[in-house]
């Protein structure tokens, strides 16, 4: 009889172990990110964060040309983008690169929101700093991309009122999106980058991860587009102190000179590796003949970058190897920034010397004749031309035209397609691209 009552009590006994039973994790691969390592794992997702860079600055720039037939064969949104259309430049529905860029910011914000609360901060202080620095740099460089595409070029006079892009500084997706001013955007970038520079290590374990010299380079770039020469020079030199080695294009480490790629990925010049797949427009495009013509016949870049004068979609000079366009940070850009800043500060000789140090590695051995400049103005022009030749198809031409026009360069971009001429006048409002219409519809934010 007693046994019977025990049996009746059985369900009650079972209840005891209930809580423990339900604490089991439902999916082995699912993790709540609450350790430094789990935060790092989010930032190590190179597929998402390093290899899906924006193609707009290339599609929109004037380093290449399309024939009418090739332009017509493009998707209508790319056709619009390439001709600087004020509407329908982005395919509706999935948000395109707007969504990609803000997705990156979300990823950075998840880390930044949680990094102070992780369980193992004290035990892994160095790693903790590294992760936080990486997240800050990721967020800042993404705002940099956004501002170069959807905001007017930085102008000290109007930046405080010019509309920039929404600044999302936390992962809470219930916060409405409101466009901040251009000034606020740059201010935030500098803040994040300076913090990143403090936190990041001098040498990363791999160039796929950001490092202190990368943060300095981003700071220099940002000051450059803000037309703040002193600061740009300051950070360029800090970066160069940490890494300044150049490849000799005649051969050596990093140079392979294969049919479709002249350099290997992660070559000695690369400080931070990011890339983008070929934009469909560039796949069908030819290099601007005027630009091709200015490469000297002994300049190795002429053949190592461009297979022929009408090199259709076969740019060989990417630092990311075949098939992808490098747009990360490399030491050659630091030399060019330094030279430009020196020239702008009136130091013609310093500028030319810096440039010569770079170019001697770009010419066939023994053929390089060092450049000379009689004045800073001439030095600046030389530096800017070399900058365009060296950094072709890295996505910098668009930003350069924007900032140079602000400084009076008066560059007009033109396209002649299907019997019509498209002109992008200097400092045109079209330099701030239309925000994708579905984003405007959803948020009600003002269009450019």
């Amino acid at each position: 009889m007693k046994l019977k009552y025990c049996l009746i009590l059985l369900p009650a006994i079972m209840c005891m172990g209930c809580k423990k039973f339900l604490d089991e994790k439902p999916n082995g691969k699912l993790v709540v990110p609450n350790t430094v390592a789990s935060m790092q794992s989010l930032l190590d997702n190179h597929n998402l964060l390093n290899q899906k860079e924006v193609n707009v600055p290339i599609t929109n720039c004037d380093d290449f040309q399309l024939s009418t037939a090739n332009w017509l064969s493009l998707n209508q949104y790319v056709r619009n983008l390439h001709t600087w259309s004020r509407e329908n430049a982005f395919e509706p529905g999935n948000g395109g690169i707007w969504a990609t860029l803000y997705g990156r910011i979300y990823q950075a914000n998840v880390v930044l929101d949680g990094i102070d609360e992780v369980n193992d901060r004290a035990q892994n202080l160095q790693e903790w700093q590294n992760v936080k620095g990486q997240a800050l740099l990721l967020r800042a460089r993404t705002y940099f991309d956004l501002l170069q595409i959807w905001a007017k070029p930085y102008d000290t006079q109007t930046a405080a009122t010019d509309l920039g892009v929404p600044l999302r500084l936390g992962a809470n997706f219930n916060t409405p999106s409101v466009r901040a001013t251009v000034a606020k955007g740059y201010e935030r970038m500098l803040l994040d980058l300076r913090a990143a520079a403090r936190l990041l290590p001098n040498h990363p374990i791999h160039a796929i991860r950001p490092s202190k010299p990368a943060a300095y380079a981003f700071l220099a770039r940002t000051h450059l587009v803000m037309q703040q020469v002193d600061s740009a020079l300051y950070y360029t030199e800090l970066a160069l102190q940490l890494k300044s080695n150049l490849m000799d294009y005649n051969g050596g480490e990093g140079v392979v000179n294969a049919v479709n790629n002249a350099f290997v990925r992660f070559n000695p010049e690369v400080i931070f590796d990011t890339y983008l797949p070929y934009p469909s427009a560039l796949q069908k495009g030819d290099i601007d003949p005027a630009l091709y013509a200015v490469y000297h016949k002994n300049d190795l870049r002429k053949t190592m970058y461009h297979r022929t004068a009408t090199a259709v979609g076969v740019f060989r000079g990417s630092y990311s190897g075949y098939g992808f366009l490098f747009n990360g940070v490399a030491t050659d850009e630091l030399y060019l920034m330094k030279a430009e800043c020196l020239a702008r500060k009136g130091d013609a000789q310093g500028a030319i010397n810096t440039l010569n140090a770079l170019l001697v590695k770009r010419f066939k051995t023994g053929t390089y004749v060092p450049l000379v400049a009689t004045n800073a103005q001439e030095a600046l022009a030389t530096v800017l031309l070399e900058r365009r030749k060296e950094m072709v198809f890295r996505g910098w031409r668009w930003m350069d035209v924007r900032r140079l026009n602000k400084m009076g360069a008066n560059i007009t971009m033109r396209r002649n397609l299907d019997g019509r001429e498209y002109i992008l006048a200097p400092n045109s409002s079209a330099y701030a691209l239309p925000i994708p219409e579905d984003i405007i519809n959803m948020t009600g934010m003002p269009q450019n």
Partner: protein
Amino acid sequence: MKTKLGILLISLWLAMPAMAQQLFLEGKVISATDQQPLAHVNIRITGTDIGTSTDGKGWFNLPIKSKINQLQLSLTGYKTLIVQVNWELNKSPSFSLSPSVETLQEVTVSTGYQTLPKERATGSFVQIDNKTYNQQIGTNVLDRLRTITNGVAPVSDRIGVFGDNAMLIRGMSTLTVAIQKPLVILDNFEYQGDLNNVNPNDIESVNFLKDAAAGSIWGAKAANGVIVITTKKGKYGQAIKVDLVSSITLAAPPNLFYDQAISGADLIEVENLLFSKQYRFTDTARANRPPFSPAYELMFQHKAGRLTGAELDAQLASLAGHDVRNDFNQYFYRQMANQQHALSLSGGSSQMAWSLGLGADRNISNLDARYNRYTIRWANQLKLSEKLHFNLDAAYAYTNSTSGAPGYGNINLGTGMLPIYSSFADVAGKATPLYAYYRQGYIDDIGAGKLLDWRYYPLNDYKESVTRDQTHDLSATLGLDYQLIPQLKLALKYRIQRQSYELNTVHSLQSYTARNLINSFTQVNSGTGVITYPLPKGAILDFSDEDLTAQNLRAQLNFTENWKDHQVNLLVGTEWSEKVANSNTDRRYGYDPDILLFNAVDLVNPYPSYMTGGQLYIPNLANMGSTNNRFVSWFANGAYTYKQRYTLSASARRDASNLFGVATNDRWKPLWSVGVAWNVLKEEWIKSPWLQQLKLRGSYGKQGNIDPRKVAVTTISYQANSNFTRSFYSQIANYPNPDLRWEEVTMLNLGLDFALFNQRLSGSVEYYTKHMDDLYASMPIDLTTGITAGSVLRNVGRAKGRGWDIQLRGYTNFGQLKWSKDLIFNTYTDKVSHLSQEVSLGRQAMASGFNILQGYSPSALFAYRWAGLDGQTGDPIGYFNGQQTKDYNAIVNQTTLQDAVFIGTQMPKYFGSLGTSFAYKDLELALRFTYKFAYFFRRNSIDYNALVTKLQGHADYAQRWQQPGDELHTNVPAMVYPLNSARDDFYRNAEILFEKGDHIRLQYVNLSYSLRPAAYPWLPFRAMKLSFAANQLPIIWRANKAGLDPETATLQRPANFSFVLNINF
């Protein structure tokens, strides 16, 4: 054969105690109405466990101890007869049984927790009788239920979101596809494995639980309805029964020409136009050598001067005359042939009952894929004492399958569709290459003999990349019933199920997959010419396995007490369950299947690609996974019946699960139901000779639905190891949602069951409403938030559904001809009643699948207004802000929901089936028609963007606008180049492309002939039946004029024909 004989012998031995007696009473039972012998009559000596049943000729042989016995003869559908028999006076008595209306109603329904008489049930149960169930033949248990169940609608393939063979019980209960499936209970416990591993011939009965009173005992998983499947069991004191079923099902290949593909000539015309516009010319210079279509290659040859104009025209004309569907038919498709054989044995002594089911299936698909299944199921009940019962069930299934040929639509070019004029073989039948991934000419002579042939030959390639899988599915159930006191029974049940699944694909060295990978990685030293293979030259083995272990433990107390007019049934219990799944995937390179060895490869360092020089990593497919879902539930159910007239029932359940990140106190979810039933006919004041049943019932309650993937906090999921940092990298798996709740469905059900005129007309009428609360839906979200999916899942909505489930059954006899009818008529409408977030854009309402829109059914279809074609250009004209316009970007991006045209719903408002059968003597013909009314679908038409970029064309191309005047007789827009994708988007969703779906289909026909052994005494068995069944028969009426199957967008399933032999020993 030996094993089967052995099993038979063991079974005979087990039944021995029932036979080892001295005296025998031999008798015969016939029907009182037609004097025909009655089989399966249960004969029992009252007050004992001694019994037997009649054979096919009505004979029985009963062992007796004393000479005077009281016998009880019972058979479903007949009045039970109790007679006194004196062996000395009559050694071979004959009895006749008369049909009973009453006994037919003594039907029980099962909820998986208890079996209760249907008479006292307050909930909505649907039982599928064995006869109707067996009118269709199939490998899967559930397939045949889709068209014969009251309240169940088979989901049209066109809706797409629910996948193949989906069924919905009483419409939708959730908008989340992953949790839309009904809960399937197999013998008391949720079935966790693959239901394909269950032999349909092992099934004794199927019950559908449709409302809260029936289903709420299943709590948080019951909102989509519950299907309770019970397998065959032996009965105490039953003589050995042996049933053999053998069937073969044949089907012709599907009609590939149902697909409205563009003609070869039209496609070449399009390609000619593209060539003249230099479309894709720059691809000739790309380093990865993208392929061109055969027609384009000819045009390039002409351009290069290697073909004259006349030669080009002749070759293009020859291409245009070809249709790849003929090649598919000739080389790949064949007749489907499925065999199914099943043997069931059952029997029992006074202390023990057992049953054994054996099954073997051998299927050969239309594409020559093989599938074999062998099942064995053993059920055993033991009476250890009057108070203690014990049962042990065990089942094992083994399946294996082998992949077959690729189907139409499954071979593509790297850049798009297979051009319709392609071919797989030359006139001599020799395989011809298809340049699917790299360009013709370039790979024909690449590598100067140093590489493997880099071409792809679809004719043979599937024979070189063969996928095989196998499943072992083993389950065991232990049950213990102990009668503590006469009113109280303790039941303990435990099930363990283990399913292991292995899949492997061997890509032989001859397969394209292997050759392509090996070639890509081949390294030729430019100095020495030495060739090395970082990816070894050999076969490639892909394999994965998955282990699933599910355990359920249930402890339950049942209390039953009857006194005077009162009857009380209570049950209370708890159930713990766990489902653990582990998976493992990997790949081996340089695999040699003969010696079972493989080569290690360098997965970490990049190698230059042979073709482009780009850096390639050897693909690393290694992956592991593990999931563990746990539930703890408490449940209680009670029913009180007064004077057999009034029943009140109530049920409550709380579930908790190990959902990730949810605080413990939020885990518990209480769900409950109440029900009442009034058995009007038991009232004393009602006396009607023509009324045999009248019952009113009603129920109200809540059921839940849980999505185990959804958790409340941010989670990340690890992806793989980075080649660069050698660390794991991850991505965000779940966006945080602290407000996440389980979905809840509240259902009200009112029902009437009746039977009139001696069962000549019976049926049920039910009306239900359901309120779905806290529905998860993916709501569009501002992409600026960084949620790249563009939507987040939230508990955003409430929806209402309501409908009628009506089933009428009738029997009419015209002399020897018996005619029966079974009409199922269902209505269903639903509407989103509340939405916490507004959807304003027409485009969002036109996304495929279901969309949640305030005031509309989730299956609502919306379209753009259509204003015809422009008479000058053939451009389609739409409306924006009330004005006719050709600004397609404005139409597509800014049309509001208010300005879009509401077409109707994708789910039918009226649906059901009509089954009818005619029996004449030994012949029976059964037919079933299914119908769906008041629903819509969108038909496909030409999409110029897909035509140009993927060479995917539609036959409507031939109907397109070509010159002024055409707009009077066509709605197909003119072809334009350059492409305008917004124009295609507008046309694709224009109102003219929507059709009424209404249709009637002859679902199946079954003709059977039963051999009465009485007429052929020399036959060694009790009964035999031969049947012929035809399934998936054509539509006999449809509303759309285009001749389209409203349920299938791609290929129609071909009709199949089965021949079945049933023998009972």
